[in-house]
């Protein structure tokens, strides 16, 4: 388990990370989401022990990284934003150098290098100079380096950047497989990726944590109310009045004419979607209106993300304060209370 307490980083007088606290549990993939310049890379650099923190504590399995760096770093595999590769080395040379650097016993180095090369499918370039590799391959070599020695904790800073869609899928599935016996902290600004891979996400902007939560919970809390689309065949006025009068319907957002006598209604709901849908369907059928299609539009993480990062960081009114506290989980809540 990695524990991060009150982590703060100043660059001169410029505050990059502001008093953030969270934990990364065992066998968990934690997503780290934020726009560019949010403090993602700085935080990851501090967790990996590259940058010293201005304030705060990072504990890797109970070992403080600034007190016992060598011991703590043994359990970490880190892939920084720019893959740390030497352009004038061959892939195989580079990986065995990294294996030595991570103090993997001499006899096991070769097997370890082969294992990670196979995992990331870079065996075919193992004899090539890194200088001549494409960005995607460099990225994968960097990732392979992080996996050497099978460290318990993996810190991956935008691991899929520069890969083609096929490789992105492969890398994602590798990350998912890692979940079995590793903890992964994974940063990205690609939302669909985070929602696919991670079980929990942290949303960060301008050095502040905006939310720590599971994806489902975030979506349901922040995504706004559900929107139902119904396509019907029949009279427009009858359908409109039936829909409007059904319990749980908040408002009709739009009515589009698809064909003659065929309309699509976008309806905002207020309450349990399944229940409302059932009653809507039966109401419409009773009024002899045929339903062609019906589906709900899920609020997606994108909306959550945009909403969260655009919130003002400092609470100006009591209402705003309550708004902020309700959706975040207990650890973020306590840190926010401390701020006030």
């Amino acid at each position, binding site marked *: 388990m990695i524990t991060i307490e009150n982590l703060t980083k100043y*660059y*001169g007088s*410029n505050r990059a990370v502001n008093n953030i606290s969270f934990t990364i549990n065992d066998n968990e993939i934690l997503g780290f989401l934020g726009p560019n310049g949010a403090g993602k890379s700085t935080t990851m*650099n501090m967790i*990996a*022990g*590259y*940058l*010293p923190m201005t304030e705060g504590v990072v504990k890797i399995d109970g070992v403080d990284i600034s007190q016992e*760096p*060598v*011991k703590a*770093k*043994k359990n*970490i595999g*880190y892939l*920084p934003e*720019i*893959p*740390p*590769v*030497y*352009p*004038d*080395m061959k892939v195989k*040379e580079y990986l065995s*150098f*990294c294996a*030595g*650097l*991570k*103090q993997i016993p001499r006899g096991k180095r070769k097997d370890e290098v082969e294992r990670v090369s196979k995992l990331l499918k870079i065996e075919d370039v193992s004899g090539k100079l890194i200088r001549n590799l494409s960005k995607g391959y460099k990225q994968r070599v960097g990732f392979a*380096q992080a996996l050497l020695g099978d460290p318990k904790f993996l810190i991956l800073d935008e691991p899929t950047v520069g890969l083609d869609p096929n490789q992105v899928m492969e890398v994602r599935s590798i990350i998912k497989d890692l979940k079995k016996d590793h903890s992964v902290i994974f940063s990205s600004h690609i939302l669909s990726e985070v929602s696919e891979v991670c079980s929990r996400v942290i949303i960060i902007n301008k050095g502040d944590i905006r939310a720590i939560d599971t994806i489902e919970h975030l979506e349901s809390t922040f995504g706004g109310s559900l929107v139902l689309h119904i396509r019907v065949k029949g009279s427009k006025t009858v359908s409109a009045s039936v829909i409007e009068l059904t319990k749980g319907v908040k408002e009709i957002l739009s009515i589009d004419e698809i064909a003659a006598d065929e309309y699509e209604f976008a309806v905002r709901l207020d309450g349990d979607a399944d229940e409302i849908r059932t009653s809507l369907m039966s109401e419409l059928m009773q009024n002899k209106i045929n339903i062609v299609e019906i589906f709900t539009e899920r609020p997606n993480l994108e909306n959550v993300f945009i909403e969260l990062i655009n919130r003002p960081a400092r609470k100006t009114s009591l209402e705003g304060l309550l708004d902020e506290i309700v959706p975040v989980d207990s650890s973020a809540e306590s840190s926010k209370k401390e701020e006030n």
Partner: protein
Amino acid sequence: MFSIYKKELQSFFYTPFAYAITALFLFLFTYVFGSAIAGLEDTSTLVFSFTEVFYNILFYFIFLLPILTMRTFADERKFGTEVLLMTSPVSVMKIVISKFLANVTVFIFMIAGSVLFPIITAANGTVVMSQLICAYIGFFSWGVMFIALGMLISSFTESSVLAAIIGEVMMFVLLFIDDFAYTAFISQYPKLQNVLLAFAAQSRFTYFSQGFIRLSDIIFFISGTIVLLAWTYISIEKRRWNRG
């Protein structure tokens, strides 16, 4: 720690770098050696001193050493591989020492080639061995200290070219600091003169080249190397704290 040493050596010897710099050194050595012979007066016995050759080569060498050390830390920063070293379970001090040892190894490789000249001379005449060995010891200690200086300068910047240029200027200043200290102007201030002379490596090299091994000179070079390496360590750590 050994992995870093090995990797550094690979980056010198798997590329033309070590060979090119050694070739350049030997070329300069040949030039100085050749001109020493060519400059001899035509008398019945030909006498010239190897120490003089070493003395003259010092001047050229200050342009070579920064080229050897310029990449040590500057390139790590430039390629972002510093992160890899700093996040590996190896302490910063060990990283500095491994890189230092690798540079010293290449330096030994460079001066090893120059042994050829005394051997050829010995085959056709006499070489004062004690003096020659002292000159080599002096040259080696001098080089080792300046490698540490070059590494320190390399840790200041991201550009290896800039590191080389600053290194050359610094080494030039240090080589001629005693000439400067003996100028009439500085002689007016004996205290300042003493301070400047304390940094003078050239006069200490003179003792070595004349066949003297003085404890104070040895301590000067060893302590100078240690101070510069410690400073390199501090400089790297400091930059991690201030990095913006």
